[in-house]
């Protein structure tokens, strides 16, 4: 996810886009990082390695379809598109309109279950 959208990610502290670093530089930065960031990185790494991230993604997708989140969002999409006109819809438009609504529409049960699974994973793997 990150690499494909490397250009989209905005630096959290400065709020502006920075040009991507060459790969060799990135690796050198690892040693300069603080512990939290390193831990986060390591956990992400672990998630991907074990395949847990994919599993979680699939689980989330299935749950969202089940609970009707996708249909709700689709209805919202239709309205947005009808407003904007079918021909003039862009990805950015859609993303800007839909992502906040999507985040809000996730039911609590789904959120709790997912968080539970993530915590379980962290408990297992945090100590490494």
């Amino acid at each position: 996810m990150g690499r494909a959208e490397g250009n989209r990610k905005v630096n959290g502290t400065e709020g502006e886009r920075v040009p991507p670093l060459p790969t060799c530089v990135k690796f050198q930065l690892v040693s300069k990082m603080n512990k939290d960031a390193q831990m986060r990185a390591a956990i992400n790494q672990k998630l991907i390695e074990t395949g847990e991230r994919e599993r979680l993604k699939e689980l989330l997708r299935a749950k969202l379809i089940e609970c009707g989140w996708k249909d709700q969002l689709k209805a919202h999409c239709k309205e947005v598109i009808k407003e904007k006109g079918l021909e003039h819809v862009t990805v950015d438009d859609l993303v800007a309109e839909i992502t906040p609504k999507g985040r809000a529409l996730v039911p609590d049960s789904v959120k709790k279950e997912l968080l539970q699974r993530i915590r379980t994973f962290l408990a297992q793997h945090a100590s490494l």
Partner: protein
Amino acid sequence: MPPLSSGQQGGEGRWQPLEVPWTHTNIPPQCVQPCCRPLCYEQSEHRLHKSSQMKMEEMSLSGLDNSKLEAIAQEIYADLVEDSCLGFCFEVHRAVKCGYFFLDDTDPESMKDFEIVDQPGLDIFGQVFNQWKSKECVCPNCSRSIAASRFAPHLEKCLGMGRNSSRIANRRIANSNNMNKSESDQEDNDDINDNDWSYGSEKKAKKRKSDKLWYLPFQNPNSPRRSKSLKHKNGFSVCTSASNTLPLLFSSSGELSNSDPFKYNNSTGISYETLGPEELRSLLTTLIFLFQQCGVISEHTKKMCTRSLRCPQHTDEQRRTVRIYFLGSSAVLPEVESSLDNDSFDMTDSQALISRLQWDGSSDLSPSDSGSSKTSENQGWGLGTNSSESRKTKKKKSHLSLVGTASGLGSNKKKKPKPPAPPTPSIYDDIN
């Protein structure tokens, strides 16, 4: 990016891209420009290795911080949700651009047409439940109207193409072959199905009433003899030797066959003198049958009802009518007090008939004991037992078997022995 060779670091060479937030301040001055020199990779790998080692130490220390873990978990969750949302956006955008986004919408008219129906007695499509139960189909073969649920078995037998139909047909062929031995010249002399007649002995264990079938095709006495043509057409043959006879045919396989409906001929009388032995045998069988079974001929199927004398489907009037038809106007309906009622009747009638016909007597046969109406049928079938044996040998013995049956019937009625009743011969007087 070219992959790193693992040999350079002595086995440690696993290259993992890291999602690392970085700032301007962290850029080392010597590597600002894009470069892919091996030296840089070596350096970076080395540093990566060091950092991962450091990480391992740090993780074990700081991993216990729950709030941080919780924050991390929330972050991961947010990432996942955002992934899903983005994925959805891409799907929608693609659908819009490819033109299939609005395809699953229905216009309002169709929405009204296909609205879900919620009335009692109807399903959601508005159809009536169980509509097909009362529907009737017309059979293309016999042009009769059959209930839908019975149509398939009927058709199987009507066309004579099912497994069971061919079994019945084969048995009938065998039956009629043996019956027509003296008359026909070209029939196959198969003795394969001789067992058809041995109902009483062989099928004692299978006393199933539904297995029996009495089938009585009537023939126009004025029409030419059609035994062969009937056989080829329907898979069984009708036994006729003279025009004034009452041809009988019954299947011992116990299955109904609709292939040849009855033709009533009210002018047919029974003249005993012209009957051959086979006809007499079958006639006697019919009579015996009438004494033990309901016998009402159904208009629908033109067959005699094989249920007991107390069959609820038919009234006594109907039974009386049938018996009058067969036996003359003074035919008496057998008493229906118990299933073994017909003792005296059987004995007397058959004995009377026998005496009239002046057959030789012998007591070859003793059919199974009758404990119920079912077994009383077996006694009727016991006729067949000897017939099969006789068929194997000579014709003469068929007489004996018949007689033996008759007397056997009388002798086997252990439960209610009654003296023979005098008025029975009058029945036959009327017939003649």
